């Protein structure tokens, strides 16, 4: 919704949503390797689900690569499928 960006009437709390940027594009990380648990675990919150793009701000291309990497890592027990 665009309404967030518009000015609210006085008295209401005003906040600006920070523009999210893709971590991989900004830091120029080309390879998203399935062995890099430290990097991947930033994108799997507590329940071990893959963080959606709308929250992490990752661009679609890198999200796809990230998904592949996380799924490979799960396969070889580097990352959990679900927390027990």
């Amino acid at each position: 919704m665009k309404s967030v960006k518009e000015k609210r009437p006085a008295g209401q709390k005003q906040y600006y949503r920070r523009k999210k940027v893709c971590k991989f594009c900004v830091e120029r990380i080309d390879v998203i390797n399935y062995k890099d648990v430290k990097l991947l675990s930033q994108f799997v919150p507590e329940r071990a689900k893959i963080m959606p793009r709308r929250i992490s701000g990752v661009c679609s291309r890198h999200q796809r690569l990230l998904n592949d990497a996380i799924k490979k890592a799960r396969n070889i027990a580097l990352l959990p499928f679900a927390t027990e």
Partner: protein
Amino acid sequence: MRNYEIMFIVNPNTPEEEIDKINGQIEAVITSGGGTIDKIEKMGKRRLAYEVDKHREGYYVLFVIAANGDIIKECERRLRVMDAIIKYITVRTDEEGRRLEKIRNYRQKRAARRGSNPGAGPSQFSDEAMQ
């Protein structure tokens, strides 16, 4: 020939010599089939993210190889029948490598273009593109 990574988890209770023996067997399968081994990395004991066959820990080993499909097939069959192997995964890496090379070339070209006629574009990005 294609590049692959084979990663497998050995039962953490197996002695070190046994692990070396397994590595030797896999190595023999690859080299006898005409493949080459770039790297064998024993990544050591790690906690598994979830329980596999009642194991909470595992000994990770990584092979980086160049081989063809038949060798991979044989390797996977061997790994499947070995009792000490808990889990394995084979990942093809040559396509990823090619993609990477393309990106690198592209960056280099861009950096070179920027270097040849300064002032054409914003110069603030030039040094990070150099790498």
